[in-house]
């Protein structure tokens, strides 16, 4: 329960910190409603729509309502997928409003000591520190390799967690040894004719749990004629922090990343995770009020591109033969890649240029799969409801391979396959892994 003083304090901060012009920019036309997954999944509850959420934020700012549990629940249930932004004719920057509102509420939350410690542990100690992350990942690797995972599954330990987490544990890829991560070179030379220099943003999860996908990305870039650098001192993009109301920490991380890439001399800064890319590409907004960093952030942002956009720009699909065994393939958009980075044609174009593939567009491929960062852990019920509806569409395409462009989506689709009992007959892959497979094949 929130106390009266807490509510007052939150209200004050809303008055002082929320961007009132942006709140007014919503003219309440409702054009965004049909695009919002939570509005649809709750059978059209305005409370869980973008228009409703903006009204709640404005209501608090205007002092018409208090920030009670229902308000926070409405905001918590938002996937942050930003589908509402792309359809808003008025150009309301919903994502920024949401981030600000969450940050204010978070800063006033009285958490129980264990939750607080866990949050501090995760947000302040673990993610901003690639070393520690690698360490934890290596524990996960030990857990998988030692056979402990089998024991734990047998004993039913995971049954204590929400179903989604239990399934998630089963679908995690085999993680690499810490040594492997450590020993990866920092420079890779182009193959064939030289096209460009790329600096690889490795990401926290991508460079631990999805290490092989990062390596595949580097391989593809080399084959596309790029020299690839992996700058030192980069770390997690900060998205998890930003979306969870830890904005100050996110800013610090942004600065470290900008500094890490600043002198790389690369033509492109490349990401392969829509979720990270979308956060990185808004570093300029995040640091807009910081005179020392604003321009440096702009410069960083201007070079940032998703791997599929880089490959298409370099005409990789025209200069290389891509081939796979006959199969139907479908693509699930990463919300952030699509709605924030506006990259959605390129992955489809790449897939369609693979011989042997029948590409089947899935109905609603552009809507969120329910993964949304850590959403499936925080709001498991809604996440699973969304995922099950998504899987119905996947099944309709008859696809054997579901392609995604973001680790969260990839895991979510894997969970979906398990829930549908299609393991074995259906697989989910990251687009770069499939492209590399097609190149070798």
């Amino acid at each position, binding site marked *: 329960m929130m106390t009266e003083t807490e509510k007052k304090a939150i209200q004050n901060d809303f008055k002082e910190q929320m961007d009132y012009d942006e709140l007014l920019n919503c003219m309440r036309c409702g054009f965004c409603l049909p695009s919002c997954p939570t509005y649809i999944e709750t059978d059209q509850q305005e409370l869980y729509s973008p228009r409703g959420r903006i*009204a709640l934020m404005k209501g608090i700012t205007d002092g018409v*309502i208090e920030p009670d549990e*229902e308000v926070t629940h409405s905001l918590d249930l938002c996937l942050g997928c930003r589908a509402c932004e792309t359809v808003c*004719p008025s150009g309301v920057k919903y994502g920024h409003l949401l981030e600000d509102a969450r940050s204010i509420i978070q800063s006033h939350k009285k958490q129980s000591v264990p939750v607080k410690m866990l949050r501090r542990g995760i947000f302040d100690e673990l993610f901003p520190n690639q070393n520690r992350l690698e360490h934890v990942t290596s524990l996960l690797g030990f857990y998988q390799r030692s056979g402990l995972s089998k024991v734990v599954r047998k004993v039913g330990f995971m049954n204590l967690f929400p179903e989604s987490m239990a399934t998630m544990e089963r679908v995690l890829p085999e993680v690499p040894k810490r040594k492997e991560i450590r020993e990866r070179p920092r420079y890779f030379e182009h193959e064939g004719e030289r096209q460009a220099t790329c600096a690889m943003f490795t990401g926290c999860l991508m460079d631990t749990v999805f290490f092989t996908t990062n390596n595949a990305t580097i391989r593809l870039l080399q084959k596309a004629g790029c020299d690839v650098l992996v700058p030192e001192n980069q770390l997690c993009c900060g998205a998890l922090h930003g979306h969870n109301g830890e904005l100050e920490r996110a800013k610090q991380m942004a600065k470290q990343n900008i500094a890490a890439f600043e002198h790389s001399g690369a033509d492109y800064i490349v990401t392969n995770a829509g979720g990270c890319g979308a956060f990185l590409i808004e570093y300029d907004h995040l640091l807009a009020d910081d005179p020392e960093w604003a321009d440096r952030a702009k410069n960083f942002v201007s070079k940032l591109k998703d791997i599929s956009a880089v490959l298409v720009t370099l005409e990789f699909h025209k200069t290389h033969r891509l081939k796979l065994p006959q199969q139907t393939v479908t693509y699930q958009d990463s919300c952030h890649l699509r709605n924030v980075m506006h990259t959605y044609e390129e992955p489809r174009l790449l897939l369609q240029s693979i011989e042997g593939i029948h590409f089947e567009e899935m109905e609603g491929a552009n809507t969120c799969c329910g993964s949304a960062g850590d959403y499936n852990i925080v709001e498991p019920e809604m996440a699973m409801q969304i995922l099950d509806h998504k899987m119905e569409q996947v099944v309709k395409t008859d696809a054997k391979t579901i392609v995604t462009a973001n680790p969260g989506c990839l895991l979510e689709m894997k969970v979906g396959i398990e829930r549908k009992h299609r393991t074995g007959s259906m697989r989910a892959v990251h687009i770069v892994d499939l492209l590399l497979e097609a190149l070798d094949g």
Partner: protein
Amino acid sequence: MFSANEKKKFGKLKKGLIDIVGSENIDDSTSGRLVYSYDATPNYQSLPDVIVAPGSAEEMAAVLKLCNDMETPVYARGSGTNLCADTCPLKGGVVLLFKRMNQILELDKENLTITVQPGVITKEICDCVEAQGLFYPPDPGSMAIATIGGNISENSGGLHGLKYGVTRDYVLALQVALPNGKLIRTGGKLTKDVAGYDLTRLFIGSEGTLGVITEATLKLIPKPESQKTILALYQDLEAAGRSVSSIIANKMIPATLEFLDQDTLKAVEGFAHIGLPTNVQAILLIVQDGPAEIVDRDIQRIAEICREQQAVDVQLAASEEEAQKLATARRTALSALARLKPTTILEDATVPRSEIAKMVRAIADIAQKYDLRISTFGHAGDGNLHPTCLTDARNTEEMERVEKAFAEIFEKAIELGGTLTGEHGVGATKAPYLKWKLGEAGLEVMRGIKQSIDPKGIMNPGKVFADVSIEREATAK
């Protein structure tokens, strides 16, 4: 805050509502009420006491009877996209939702009708019938989100108004729940029906002030065989206006004839990125449909007329896809304009088509006189323009000027033989001006009708009928 008495009354109301619809279909939480405290009209907000979602006509009738007995105001609410504060619960009370009454009930291909519940989204109806080679023409800009119940209650128009008419022209029959708890049926699947007063038309456009529509049967027509779209570009607003009158005077009725000025073009292009011309003062978006030879002939003649009226360029949409993009982009005009300034106040003045050029001129003059930024777009072919003032509600001095400017625009529209509102309804925003159009005697007839159907005044109070009318002389030039 409720007094003890009010609390008791509310408790009784809530219990009665739960008995009818079940507790899962009512919501009286603060945030639940907040999100139904507004519609698309700027500057209006008022919290209802409770939100109710009945699941059938019978439940709806029972809810109305309960509210009537307890003298509690009710507000039917579709998607809340109206632009005259029509669903703003000004006097508290009950907001009625149709999310459980949103099914298409029947598509009758022999009689060419479709029967729907009020909560169906208009676009769903259009898509459903077009898949069968049929056509439901009324297509308000908001069709992708507005409900058919809302369309009927506002008698909404759209991009097809000029040739095909408005919602009214397609409603054959209604089922309506009345404040006394009775359900009535009006009209039928008939092209001819003179049994009694035309009650169907009485409820069309009644803005939820008489009863609640619980079912509607709509007329369909065959889908036109083909269509073509052109854009005519102008450096002179009045020339665009003259083209409209001239096309019609030359006995051609295009399916769509929309006007967009430069501000609107820039705002829409800023959202849609489809290559609209932004370096001209205005464009006309013109569509003709029908058999291919006639479409070709009309489009050619319309293009000639536009050139004669000093269009600087006339462009033909290259494909069906491009034409669709243009229509879709046009539908976003109002919301897109909202990106330019914190508050967008739009009006709906309508004049006979022959007067459109004069009205365009008058709007520009009035904007200049009051030093305001007014952009104009609209259904020019219907004589229905949407002068939209881009302002900031926090600037009270400017808001006063906005009010004066719009009073003068209304004045001018009526002087040219037009009306206050062509399609958006009277609601709360235009209620004080209604007398200008109807006169005292006209208003009296309306009050009589209202009194006989809704004697306790529970249906959407504060709308259409103003507590105080603005006197015309006081604001006249």
